[in-house]
């Protein structure tokens, strides 16, 4: 159970990215966050694992206050929260397997990891994670040799290594074409069915309808909607995205 209470983020330059946002995410939910670019979706996701420090408000993860955690506690919390990024955020020059193993950094002996020594068990786990996303044969290639869809699968494998209880996915398919979008989101859906809570920001309404169990919408940092995906009709959509917005259908779905 994740509980966000009165979350506010004001950047040093005065931009108000989030304004008094509160919501709850019960375990096992697939929560989709929608909103225009700059509406605060990314900031919200990054506040949850404190990649960005919230200005005000509390975030409870299984009744532990993330916002008050010490650095050591925070690392303990972070390692249970996998994160997937729009730009994949792989180390492009490193091998795929190294990128995947990096997901395990919160668990292994830090000294050995600094020397680049990984137990055989962890290597097996990494190969299994790559197997699961269907690119085990790419394990020893450089990350930048892979296509966009493959790179995002590496990103998912990295998150899998964390044995996450929660996955934060920041526009995971915005850089991919629509066909690939489904294959990526299906992995998240699968994980979700296994009991992992997913919080995912998305652009395409079709994808929202297809995957979300619940939706919240942000507009200029304020939560303007919370409810079932079916409740978002064209009227609501226009409210969230503004009058001029036209629903772009992810083609060939």
């Amino acid at each position, binding site marked *: 159970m994740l509980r966000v209470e009165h979350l506010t983020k004001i950047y040093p330059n005065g931009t108000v990215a989030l304004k008094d946002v509160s919501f709850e995410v019960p375990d096992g939910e697939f929560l989709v966050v929608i909103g225009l670019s700059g509406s605060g979706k990314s900031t919200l996701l990054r506040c949850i694992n404190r990649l960005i420090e919230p200005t005000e408000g509390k975030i409870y993860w299984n009744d532990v206050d993330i916002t008050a955690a010490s650095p050591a506690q925070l690392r303990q919390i972070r390692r249970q929260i996998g994160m997937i990024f729009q730009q994949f955020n792989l180390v492009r020059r490193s091998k795929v397997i190294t990128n995947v193993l990096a997901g395990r950094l919160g668990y292994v002996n830090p000294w050995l990891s600094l020397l680049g020594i990984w137990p055989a068990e962890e290597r097996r786990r990494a190969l299994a994670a790559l197997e699961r996303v269907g690119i085990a044969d790419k394990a020893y290639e450089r990350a930048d040799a892979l296509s966009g869809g493959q790179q995002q699968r590496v*990103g998912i494998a990295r998150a899998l*290594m964390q044995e996450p209880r929660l996955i934060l996915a920041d526009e995971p398919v915005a850089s991919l074409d629509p066909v690939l979008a489904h294959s990526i989101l299906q992995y998240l859906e699968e994980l979700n069915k296994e009991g992992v809570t997913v919080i995912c920001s998305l652009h395409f309404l079709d994808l929202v309808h297809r995957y979300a169990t619940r939706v919240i919408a942000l507009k200029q940092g304020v939560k303007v909607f919370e409810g079932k995906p079916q409740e978002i009709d064209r009227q609501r959509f226009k409210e969230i995205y503004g009058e001029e917005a036209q629903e772009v259908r992810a083609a060939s779905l």
Partner: protein
Amino acid sequence: MSERKWLLSAFLPGAGQFLGGRRYRGGAILLLWLILVVIVAAYGQPIWWISPILIWLWNIWDAFHLQRLGREASLFLPLLAGLSVLYGIGWQITQIDLRSADMRRALQIVRPMLRPDFVQPRRELNQMWVEILVPCKENPPRAFNKLDGKTAMATPDCARVGEVVIVSVQGLWPNTDTQIWWQTPIGDPKMLGPNESQMLILPTDDNGALSATIRVPTTALVAAPDPSLALPHRVYFDQYRNVGGWELSFNGREVLKGAGVTIAMALMATVLASLFAIPISFLAARNLMGGHPVTFAIYFAVRTFLNVLRSIESLILALIFVVIVGLGPFAGVLALALHSIAALGKLYADVLESIDPGPIEAIRATGANWAQVVRYAVIPQIISPFVAFTIYRWDINVRSATIIGLVGGGGIGYLLVELIRINDMRGVSAVFITIAVIVIALDVLSARIRERLV
């Protein structure tokens, strides 16, 4: 009157254009013309007054053109006239004098350079000597020596400076040129040829025997503590013959040694510099230091310092370090290192500024600690460009180290200066060739390695 406005240009260049509404053109013509006049007046030989006169005439033509035809005259003539006078004065100032180029002197220098002194045919030495007492004393020992089937003798057994002595030797190689020279008791060699400034060289006969008339060198006793004390001097007979194959000459060995020193200097300096430049570069990276006014001030100070340091040539630094630590490779290493710290610091900082923040965010999100983030998100991004830039710097430093040798920084450059001073042009050309080979080889090597890294 108004139709004749262009005529004003005949009295003052640019006036016609100015009054005709082309103020900038008129002003520029006047200003540039005056500058030209001042330059010609200051440096000039009378012939160069042609140029301002031509421009003055052109200026009248231009004013006429503008007023009557509404078009500007071509700028070609004044530009040509102005530039040629500037070039002519430049010629005069830089003291170009083609008559000073002495072809004979040039050939004296270039001809030996066509035969670089690097290797020589491998030779073996056949040597014999005989001892003779200088000056005489009573009952001198016989000037006779027998060694390995060779005999040598001198008559008389003793002599004073300047006296004639007949020396003869038997059992040497037949029909072979033999160098005959004098050695004083303290080991100084003296030549026995004309004016005592050339080597006496005579061939042996069919039986390997030779006899020669020599004079005891006038300088034989110059360094003797007591010239009246009779001491044994030696006359040497040296024969050389090729035994096939080649070996490094003396200069060749020195050149190789110098090249080794130069490459090592560059290597030491580069490693030393990169050790310092790595931490400094973190302070000079805007993305790491921009967050806070204090860190930004440090960033700014470090960047400024690097830029100032980088603007001082390593050659200048070497001159200073030679004063501080003395002549030799160490001064060169320090100079190269200091300059390289600045250059590498900036290059490294540029690399750091261009790293992708995404992976850092991703690794932090896995629960990694600070060191793990650096190890898994920062270092993989910077290691290849850092290594590539360091190799590139080493390449540059080898070239600089050669120059630094010229001012006393050791290595092959220092050898080069010494060879030029003693006018050993064959050695100089061996140095040139070696430098070229090193630079080209290193250039190719570093390009290959960088290609694979980037």
